[in-house]
């Protein structure tokens, strides 16, 4: 089964073009959707999750027309929105059980088992009777993951899932995803490149509604081989360097700016070759240098 997106466009009422002729083919496995904030990732995810109507284009999940046979999609869908809240005065267990019911686990004994298992997997079992409103950000996010995974989705859409998670939780979450990701389509949207690098076999970079890159992360990195250069500079020099070079990134290392610049030829000026990473790919793509 494959998710095929063809020429998807969406313009909001305020004139913002969120999706501009987006076409993607997403196979089974983990698929990373990388883009800066406001790139149109969430619009795309919501469209795939049957929550939004595009202006034009088609989406199909195997034989299913996602835009028309919404209920068919929903039966196979697990969705973790970027932002979500919870009903007040309700415990994690009750809420999860309710969502499991809505997803179709109508047998109450079975539901109880599934919910219990899922709570354990997401490390929420001990607090299952507590009100969700009292949860910390990480706990709430784990709950979100739990609800997305429940009911064996064949299409799992997770929008910025690791926001608010500490490193340990992030690891655990990736393990979970990787485990289910072998059998189903997992679309992971993020603006954190390591997430994609670590997890995904396929990825796309989206910026201002357009797909800038589609393919494997490693392939993208290889493209940059020999075109990324690095050096550290003094703070006052920054403006000068930004004017003179195509600066991909600038990080503080030991309190001094450390630059990655893009160039087909060695730029000289003390720049040394650098091993490109996905972040370099991301920034060169969205600046359209590559």
């Amino acid at each position: 089964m494959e998710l095929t997106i063809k020429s998807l466009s969406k313009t909001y009422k305020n004139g913002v073009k969120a999706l501009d002729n987006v076409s993607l083919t997403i196979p089974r496995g983990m698929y990373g959707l990388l883009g800066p904030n406001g790139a149109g990732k969430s619009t795309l995810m919501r469209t795939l999750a049957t929550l939004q109507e595009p202006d034009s284009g088609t989406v199909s999940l195997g034989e299913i027309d996602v835009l028309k046979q919404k209920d068919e999609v929903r039966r196979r869908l697990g969705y973790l929105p970027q932002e979500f809240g919870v009903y007040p005065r309700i415990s994690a267990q009750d809420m999860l059980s309710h969502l499991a019911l809505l997803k179709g686990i109508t047998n109450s004994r079975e539901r109880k088992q599934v919910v219990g298992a899922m709570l354990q997997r997401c490390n929420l079992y001990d607090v299952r009777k507590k009100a969700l409103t009292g949860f910390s950000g990480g706990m709430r996010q784990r709950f979100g993951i739990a609800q997305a995974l429940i009911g064996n989705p064949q299409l799992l859409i997770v929008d910025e899932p690791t926001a608010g998670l500490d490193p340990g939780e992030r690891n655990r979450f990736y393990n979970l995803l990787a485990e289910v990701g072998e059998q189903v389509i997992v679309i992971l949207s993020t603006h954190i490149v390591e997430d994609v690098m670590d997890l995904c076999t396929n990825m796309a970079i989206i910026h201002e509604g357009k797909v800038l890159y589609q393919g494997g992360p490693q392939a993208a990195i290889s493209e940059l081989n020999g075109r990324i250069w690095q050096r550290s500079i003094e703070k006052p020099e920054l403006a000068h360097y930004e004017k003179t070079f195509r600066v991909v990134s600038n990080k503080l290392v030991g309190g001094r700016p450390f630059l990655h610049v893009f160039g087909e030829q060695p730029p000289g000026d003390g720049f040394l070759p650098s091993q490109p990473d996905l972040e370099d790919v991301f920034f060169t793509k969205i600046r359209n240098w590559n």
Partner: protein
Amino acid sequence: MFLRIALFEIRFWLRSWMVWIFLFIIGLLIFGAVSSDNVQVGGSLSNTLHNAPFVIQNFYSFIALLTLLMSTAFVNSAAIRDFSHNTYQIIFTTPLRRIDFLLGRFIGATFVSVIPMLGVSFGILVAKYMPWVDPERWGRVDWAAHLKGIAVFAVPNAFFVAAVLFAIAVLARNEIVSFVAALLLLTGYGIAGALTQDIQHEQLAALLDPFGRRAFSFLTRYWTVSEKNTLSVGFDGLLLWNRLIWIGAGCLVFAAAYSRFSFAERRTKTKAVLDDGLQALLAEPAPPVTLIRPQLHDSLWPKFWGSFKIHFLGMTRSTFFIVIAVASLLNCIPSIALNATEGYGNHTLPVTYWVLDLIRGTLYLFVVIVITYYAGVLVWKDRDERMDEIADSTPTPEWISLSSRLLTLILMVMLMQTAALLGGIAVQAWHGYHRYQIGLYLYELLIRDASAFLCLGVLAFFIHALSPNKYLGYFFYIVFLAGNTFMWGPLNVATNLVQFAGTPNVVHSDMFGDAPYRAAWSWYTLYWLLFCGLLAILTVMFWPRGKQDRWAGRRRNAAQRFHGGWVSATLLCLLAFASTGGWIWYNTAVVNRVVGPKTLQRRQAEYEKAYKQYEKKPQPRVRSVKYAIEVYPESRNIVMRGEQAIQNPLAQPLEEIHFTIDPNYVTEIEIPGASLSKDDQKLYYRIYKFDSPLQPNETRTMHFTVKSRNRGFENDLSTVELVQNGTFFNNTIGPIVGYQSQRQLADPNDRKKFGLKEIDRMPPLERNCTDNCRETYLGGHSDWVDVQTVISTSADQVAIAPGSLLREWQENGRRFFEYKLDHQSLNFYSFMSARYEVAREEWNGIKLEVYYDRQHPWNVPRMMNSLKKSLDYYTKNFGPYFHKEARIIEFPRVARFAQAFPGTMPYSEAIGFIANINKPDDIDFVFYVVAHEMGHQWWAHQVIGANMEGATLLSETMAQYSALMVMEKEYGRDTMRKFLKYEMDNYLRSRGAERLKERPLLTVEANQGYIHYRKGSVVLYYLKEMIGEEAVNRALRKVIAQYAYAQPPYPTSYALVDALKEQTPADLQYLIKDLFEDITIFSNRTLDASAQKRADGKYDVTLKVETHKYKADAKGNETEVPVNDYIDIGAFARPAKNKKYGDTLYRQRIHITQKDSQFTFVTDSLPEKAGVDPFALLIDRVPDDNTKNVTLLSGTSVGKNQAARAIQ
């Protein structure tokens, strides 16, 4: 510093739209109230000028109740804005003093809270210049009244409210708690009002009212129209104290809030859950849990049930719902338990229909609030809680989302209803009333009312589903409800087919249940439920799901959803809706008629315009009638055949006879030797021309047949007199001779609208009148008639007609009765039929009968007793009783009155039959009403006034006097004091609301009940006290002897007043003028009352009193006149336990001729109270200050001189 914070706060609000919207709303409301008759805010305007100082101040005293929730918004935000916006960390770390911060915010919020209240002034000021207002009802702009209204009411009320809300906000830091507290404040205010309703606590209640409203009404309670138009209250008397008390209370509350306020962040209320996730991760990872692969199903029932459960539990656990439900019950149950008074401080037995009415009156406002509020909450719940993306992406059909929420809403309503139901039953049990009609409760609340609430809920869901935001949804819903309530009348649309959720107004009676209304109600309810079904389908189609920012997308979604089962369901629903509508249309508009309210008024106006010219035209008179009446209770139909003798009483021949016809019946008239010359089928007026004129004294016999035409069902019941059990109609459904002025439009504004001049008052009183006294004030072109009736009804019912029962038989499965009047009587009587129980007794050969519903046996013995005691007193003191029976007959509560017909007295099930008179101190209302109606057997049915001013003095005032005497004999003089206090109070209040002219008793108008009943009681009782009961009765006997059953000319009020005058001794002759010819009002006051113990153990009592006497004109302008009156002074002992009044220790009639006087007298024991006119016999503007508590002076007085010195 605090000033700067206050100014900042004020500027902050002045820039927001909220203040101005609130100001606009209040302004519009008041504008509507003063410029249109359709809008009422805090009571009607009566006949004061529309911008009278009284009106302005009354609005200002009331408006704080309306702006309370608005103030909550301002105050709450001022108090906790920094916490809810998390700016407190910035603000509270500045070197700001707590007092400056709090006081500044508080003063600012108080100031802003006053702004919406100013809408009162804006509304009134603007309305004056509207083209449609009647300039005669508007006076000059009284700026002082506006300013005083703001200073006395608006500002202090805003201050107090703000203080309380500020304290709550500071302590709770939660918006919902603040709003709930505001609602509780409103409810508490309502309850306090109900608790202090009893007249005894008036002054205390006035002080305890935080808004000063009751103090205001206490100060102005006896104001006349002219006073209301010119005077305004400042910080006076009781009001000053009230304001001081509550401003003080506000300060205290604020101080308390200040002492509790802290800049520190409080621990958040929701308990944080300890996150053990990290610990668990750091530890060895848990063994992987085997993934269960659950079976997914599409079964919908569990999804529906699960969704419902989660919504229902979520909503009913919310604090707001619990509080509003509790508040509504606090408003509802005590009102049932306390029993609204029925008159004279009496209570009503908690019969179920009456409890139901109370539940509706006290609970349903809250229910509508809950529906309005929670429909929005439920529709927007997922989006508000940001659960929408998760929930919307699950495979749950939209109809489950809708129906589970709708069920939640309706069950929330039912929960409140059920709680009220249980409360109602508990109250019934507590009152020892054990006829629990559980079925009736369930049907009326959970079926009849709940189906209307369901319609409201569906509509609200529909609006919210389409609305782009929650607040717009609320706005549109409220606008729709308001339009639906107020729009149709002005549009002249009466049919319930277009008024959303419109059904006929059902009156439940213990006698007929809801039988007459059942068909129409059921069909209309089905019609609207089907409509709501369609609306619900539409709501499902447009149910918000996901993030749709464009209509096109939603329309596409709707089109996608509308398939298969939905199409057939819609078609089915549409078909059922259309055919139900068609069936209703056929029944209400084809078989029957729907007439718009304006059309009815226009017909009345046209009737007057076309036929008023014949009002004075001489007509033949009815001399006798023989009826053959068939009553068919099951089908609510009757056939009335009459054979009527008409005679020419005049010296000239008569050419024509005119009839006014009842539009609800089909009438055929047959007059031998006469032909129909005009038949107005629209205005129901007929003129017959005699072929040969009716000669003087010639009598002819005419026939008529009157048939009801109840078929199918009507939009609203037109003939409520015909019911399945409890038929009750008058002879006036038959053709009435001549023009009927009762059919005219009465409301002065309506009359103006149709270009009619002011309604005729009664003709002026004449002495020695002949020609103008040929008609009684009841009209009808008849004098004393003989009536004979054969009336038949279904086999299980008893039918009653005037007179003695001659025979009774069965025929064709129906019951027949023949009645005949024992003595000629007025042509004014009724016929009834119902399944009656009959209580029978005899009094000196006269049959006493009470016909009652078997469910209402409680007061029948009291009625019997009153019948007997009345006959005792009246036959002894007035003259003989000419009927062989006296009957009281219960009729259903479609009307609430008791009325006297010859020998029969119909009495509504809603009054006396369910009166609850169990405390020894109660005024026996049932006894009194029966005595009053029995009094009419002499005063109306023997002596009837000519159609002229003062006519009702001869009937209503005399019936009141008669009843007073019978009551005094039965219950003693103390009860009379209590009764007369109510009468006096009613008179004094009502005269302030008189729309036209207050008349003296001698020339009272027939519709001035507050004069002929209330003032009449007080005046006649006073006269009796002054000249003695025997002297009054001698006069009455003389009037009876002269005028009982006399042929025209009929007597006028002079006949009575002259007779009383004859019996009045010379030195009291002034009374006749004061009491009957003028409007005389006293202002007696005891300034000081003190007592000093004498050596012999007795007490010297000294009184300082003030006496003013006024004569009032028709508009209430008073002129002081010199006092030259015999007035009592007296002293009372402390009342014994459970007694209202103490023994009279001293009573002396004094001739008072000056305003200030001082008296000293001796009593045997220490009096508690003493004063002038201590029994409040005189009409006094403020009867309460006639007596004063006696202060005991220390020391022993030797003689008078010393006591006098001690006072000076």
